[in-house]
């Protein structure tokens, strides 16, 4: 059985050097519709995510950023529209194919969503145990280097999630998301609630992981510093669809009141100037 080209990684380096437009598309959303009761969340939403890029998703509260992510990863069944991941239509997969596809993406939820009854090491091992039958010692080795890769010390391994700080929980969640060596990483507000130093370190971590592991990163964020620091392209969600996708420089010249307010408001200016704005403490 040959895997489709989208699943291949061998020519990744060439693709990384190539211009954005030449990269293949790993996520394609076309005509997405979502409604909660009478409230329209998405109407005719189109989005394409290219391989190896970090795409930032921004938008005001309630514009359906998280719903978009949940639709792509199959936690939410859209009313209408097509979602293709690695060239496969999500709604046409059977249970087996769907499970197989899930192996190729990792998701980091807002607060890590670690299983509270398991230690960090056990949490990281869960996906491996689910998909493969490895020796316990090998599982521990894999968990060990994944935990180190996300910058957690070894002493965090045998701890329970309730004993960790928010930043450490996010890192542990990231280790679990990365354990199957996914191609796509979905991050839901990874730096929310972190202090500026931890947030900057997390940005750096994601960029490094993208560069070493060749990940495609789908990043929902409100953090202007994150957008400036690591995103290759940014998609702006408003009025139920994607208003504009482009680099931050392109978006700053885009004539829309919300986009202008977002990137040229006081915080946007501070982030553009490379000055760390004072973050609200939570």
């Amino acid at each position: 059985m040959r895997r489709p080209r989208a699943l291949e990684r061998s020519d990744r380096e060439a693709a990384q050097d190539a211009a954005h437009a030449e990269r293949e598309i790993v996520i394609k959303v076309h005509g997405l519709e979502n409604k909660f009761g009478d409230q329209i969340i998405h109407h005719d939403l189109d989005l394409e995510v290219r391989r190896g890029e970090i795409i930032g998703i921004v938008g005001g509260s309630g514009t359906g950023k998280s719903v978009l992510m949940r639709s792509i990863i199959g936690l939410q069944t859209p009313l209408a529209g097509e979602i293709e991941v690695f060239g496969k239509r999500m709604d046409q997969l059977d249970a087996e194919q769907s499970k197989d596809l899930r192996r190729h993406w990792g998701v980091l939820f807002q607060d890590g969503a670690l299983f509270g009854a398991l230690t960090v090491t056990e949490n990281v091992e869960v996906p491996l145990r689910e998909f493969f039958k490895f020796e316990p010692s090998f599982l521990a080795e894999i968990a060990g280097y994944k935990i180190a890769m996300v910058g957690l010390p070894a002493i965090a391994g045998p701890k329970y999630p309730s004993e960790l700080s928010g930043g450490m929980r996010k890192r542990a969640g990231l280790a679990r998301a990365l354990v199957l060596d996914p191609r796509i990483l979905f991050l839901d507000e990874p730096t929310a609630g972190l202090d500026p130093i931890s947030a900057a370190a997390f940005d750096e971590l994601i960029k490094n992981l993208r560069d070493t592991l060749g990940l495609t990163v789908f990043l929902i964020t409100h953090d202007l510093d994150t957008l400036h620091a690591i995103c290759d392209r940014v998609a702006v969600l408003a009025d139920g669809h994607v208003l504009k996708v482009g680099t931050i420089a392109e978006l700053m010249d885009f004539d829309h009141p919300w986009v202008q307010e977002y990137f040229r408001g006081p915080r946007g200016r501070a982030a553009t100037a490379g000055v760390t704005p004072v973050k609200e403490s939570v």
Partner: protein
Amino acid sequence: MRHDCGVTGATFTDSGGTLALGGRWTVAHIGELEPQLRALNGSVKTIDMSGVERIDTVGAWLIHRLIRDGGAKVTGASSEASRLIDSVGKSDQPVERHPFRGSVFVHRLEMTGHAVVSQLHVLGNFLAFLGKTMVVLFQTIFERRSLRLNSVVHQMDVVGVHALGIVGLLSFLVGIVLAQQGAVQLRQFGAEVFVVNLIGRSTVRELGILLTAIMVAGRSSSAFAAQIGSMKLNEEIDAMHTIGLSSFEVLVLPRVIATGLMMILLGFYGSMMAILGGGLFCWASLDMPPVTFVTRLQEVILFSDFWIGLFKAPIFGVIIAVTGCFQGMQVTGNAESVGQRTTAAVVQSIFLVIVLDAFFAVFFTALGFV
């Protein structure tokens, strides 16, 4: 010796210290060959990676392990593979799966000590909580604090009115069972008519109240613990305190008052339903007409039985509500704690109700209410 995994999978061929790799060295393919690779650890001197089609961190980790343990040299690696091997090499960090516990014996001993101390703490906290509730109750009675009447009425509806169906059905059925089993035994002495004494006295004084209390403990004590517990997790209790609201006044007292009051009514209602069940059984099965049944009932039930039953009911209600609220307030950390505390609320409130009932039985008998 050649090892491979499936048709499209990873392969490695071992020829006297040189390992030639091929195929996909990714988690899905090479993972199965891990034990064979482990066996080669230390004997491999050269690794030829030119045949590798694809590699991920798990493949890189296995190669890193050969390099680390046997000092193997890598040839023919793509820049991507070198980067991955380098990256996992930097992250080589063994972790423990579980917290260190020491020897089993010491661990058991520590657990036992911990359990004893924490139980004593819980007991102390519970008494403090009960005391605080009583203080707030009396302050409210003497109008030094306001009573949340809306909240009390709402809780009365939830605790009392909504429980009518299940409490009624349960008591009714127990009444029938009591009459039927009693009749079988008493028939041996030709004393079937004493079934009325059995039903009348046992339900009004003991069973009606106790069954209702157990039912209310199962329904409402758990609900209180879960409600207050999730509010605690959500920092709503802390928010109340910062606004200047007392959680005792807002949450605990309305539940305690409502449960205490509704236990009186539900207990009485439960007893009546049990008598109704027993009466119907006597009518249908023992041919005792309802008029006879009621007349006998009036003769055998002492007024003291009735008052003892109604005296116990509100005390049970208060204990149930206080236990539920107390356990809810003890929730810390995560959702699992809510589950544990809810279970503890039900178990402890039923336990306390039965212990108190036993105490009252001895107490009132000693006082001469036989």
